[in-house]
């Protein structure tokens, strides 16, 4: 461990008093001549990284209405309703099964704090993060999105990014 260093604390004095003013001006002038870094938003767009937490997409087929996401949500912003239906047994003589059908899956993005807990706890891979971010609305109420809208976003879910090399264990559980 290196020894804590006390700097000399010398001020950054220019040789000529006032020269510092012109060094700054030279910097701004150089920048003035360079090409700006701005991305002109509606015309050009930055591509967010694959993991960007833009919006939550829902795969209705995978959802079993287990309520886990609604329970784990710290903001209580997921509203789920469902009902059970009797299904004929898979094979003759088998037990009649019940299946849950999702009636309502609303996420209030005005309340959501984009923590990702719901995506993480979902045991059936029904929720995904999508980097999509253009869904602003004019009123808070319009930020409550139902399952139809959430399903549309499923198409924007990207493949996971390639990983930085040297992953010795492969990540397989």
């Amino acid at each position: 461990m290196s020894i804590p260093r006390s700097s000399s604390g010398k001020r950054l004095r220019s040789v000529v008093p006032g020269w510092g003013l012109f060094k700054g001006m030279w910097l701004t002038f150089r920048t003035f001549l360079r090409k700006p870094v701005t991305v002109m938003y509606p015309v050009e767009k930055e591509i967010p990284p694959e993991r960007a937490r833009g919006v939550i997409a829902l795969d209705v087929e995978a959802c079993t209405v287990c309520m886990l996401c609604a329970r784990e949500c710290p903001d209580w912003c997921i509203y789920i309703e469902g009902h059970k239906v009797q299904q004929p047994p898979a094979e003759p003589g088998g037990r009649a099964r019940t299946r849950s059908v999702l009636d309502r899956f609303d996420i209030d993005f005005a309340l959501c704090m984009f923590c990702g807990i719901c995506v993480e706890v979902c045991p059936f891979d029904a929720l995904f993060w999508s980097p999509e971010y253009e869904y602003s609305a004019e009123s808070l109420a319009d930020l409550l999105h139902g399952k139809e809208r959430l399903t549309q976003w499923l198409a924007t879910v990207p493949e996971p990014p390639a990983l930085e090399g040297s992953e010795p264990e492969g990540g397989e559980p």
Partner: protein
Amino acid sequence: MSEPEPPAAPAPDPETPSAETPPARAAHWAALVGSAEWADAFRTVKVRVPRERWVEAHRALQPHLPFFAWLSAIDWSNEVAVGDPLEGEPVEERYEVISRLSDVSAGEAVILSTDLPPDDLTIDSLAGVYTAADWHEREAADMFGITFVGHPNPVRIYLSEGFVGHPLRKSYPLLAREVKAWPGAVEVTPLPAAEGSAGEPKEGGA
């Protein structure tokens, strides 16, 4: 780090207090304030002093630990309005005032603690010993309703003048959790706790 070092077991740094066996430090601080009650769990040294000797104990430690990190309180209560109650045996209902002192060189630190009975929430102010205790005491007064006797500026710090109640008391409800029904209360299918792989940690290499 210039010298090669086995990354698996980093050598204890000579400068960190962990080099010395922690209980010895804890006992050292306890002896300094004249208290026999101390705890050292999870590398958090806590020395308990009686309420009468609260200011005195701080005065004894001030030359060694000049940095007043924070002061707060804990409402030990068996009944809670929100959150998880304490597990296990019921505790003695009391308010525990804790303050943390440390130094600014070697990383030494100690937490002093004292108990206040729920019916008499007054304690002497530390403002005379540690200047930095000022705002923390005002905060504790706001949040727990503890009166700090001799505080130079006993006005509210966070809450507005007309605010009723002391929010961090365990008896104080959290309105945000009461005005809205829990969306998770709907039961459609049982929790998938019985699912085979769901109980395992999912991360790579686990």
